[in-house]
């Protein structure tokens, strides 16, 4: 494999790692190249991205490299954001929102564990509608992003504060509430 192919791998790694980014060291481990070579490749990529026909740039923060859109295109991205909105929240989005509301701050993986299904799409939906936001990174491996609800969330549901949410955050009790309620309803429908 020659250097230009490794460049492709490094670009792919940066792409896949998303907003989490990667350190040169991590990339060296994954590609089994030495850090100097990685740095060299990163510089080449950085140079490539400066070309006016390219749509991304490389950023560096706390030794993590990641790809990002170019600020000079931000007008278009703003249009993208306002364009993408649908009026009503889907069941998947509502579920995801409920999970974030009661468990914030919470990571994507934790949300998916509770829902039992992949949740990229609903997370993105409620993120882009400003109902949740990034509230920091969890101090575990990979430093995953954590989400929490926003002020708009309160407005949307007509709440004055997050404390006005029904107390589903008492982990042990909440199962019982829904269960007893549903048992009660089962009885009702039988009548």
């Amino acid at each position, binding site marked *: 494999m020659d250097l230009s192919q490794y460049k492709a791998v490094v670009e792919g790694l940066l792409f896949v790692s998303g907003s989490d980014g990667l350190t040169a060291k991590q990339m060296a481990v994954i590609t089994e190249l030495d850090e100097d070579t990685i740095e060299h490749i990163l510089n080449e990529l950085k140079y490539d991205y400066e070309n006016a026909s390219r749509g991304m740039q490389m950023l560096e923060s706390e030794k993590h490299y990641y790809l990002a859109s170019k600020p000079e295109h931000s007008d278009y991205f703003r249009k993208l954001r306002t364009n993408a909105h649908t009026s009503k*929240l889907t069941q998947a989005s509502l579920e995801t929102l409920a999970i974030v509301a009661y468990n914030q701050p919470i990571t994507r993986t934790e949300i998916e564990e509770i829902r039992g299904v992949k949740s990229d799409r609903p997370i993105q939906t409620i993120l882009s509608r400003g109902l949740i936001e990034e509230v920091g990174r969890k101090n575990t491996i990979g430093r995953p992003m954590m989400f929490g609800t926003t002020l708009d969330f309160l407005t949307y549901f007509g709440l004055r504060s997050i404390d006005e949410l029904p107390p589903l955050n008492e982990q042990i009790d909440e199962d019982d509430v829904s269960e007893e*309620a549903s048992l009660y309803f089962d009885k009702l429908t039988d009548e």
Partner: protein
Amino acid sequence: MIESYQVKIDGFEGPLDLLLHLIKQYEIDIYDIPVALITTQYLEYIETMQKLDLNVASEFLVMAATLLAIKSEMLLPNQEITDEDDYEEDDPRAELVARLIEYRKYKDAAEQLKEIEGEEKESFTRSPEMIKETEKIKPPIKENTASIYDMLEAMQAVFNRKKWSQPMTTTIEKIEIPIQQRMEEVLEIVELSDNGVPFETLFPYYSKSHIIVTFMAMLELMKQKLIYCEQERTFDQLILHKWR
């Protein structure tokens, strides 16, 4: 011996799969299935499954009945073979053959997917980028487009799903607040308001039993036609009104 049978039977995805297996094993022409033979073989498998106390899915039994029906129809004296076109339709095996061929198409396709899967040539996308700007543009917010009730429901759906794998247990808890008392309280709140009371405001104490009692009280009041519930559109807020 028994073990090898079990392995085989477990490996069948269904009656069609078992039939295809037999057809392959006996090198049978799928367009000209010897029904008597295949029925005998098929029934032997089912019998073995039953002997081994395996849970024979009902689909296997339905297929057995179908095979027997086709077999008996084949035994009837061949009335008149008019012309070639009619023959196809009159063949009692035609429908089964069509199903087998249709199913085999996807069995083969599954095999190909499996090969692709084995090549481990996945690709990966990335999550959409969050747009961070100082002047953050917020999408227009419509108030009360969903109620907490919707969310509560959504949450419940999550818990219900999670519980699929757990045994169902019922806890009967002592109810501290008499329903009658809570009914009076709720009725009073509703009667005092002119424009109705939002559903969620009736849950001021977030204790488990209080929520349930309030809920039951509301339902009882609705049943007795003392209050009614209003929701303009599916995702609108629930409003409680006194019955006039």
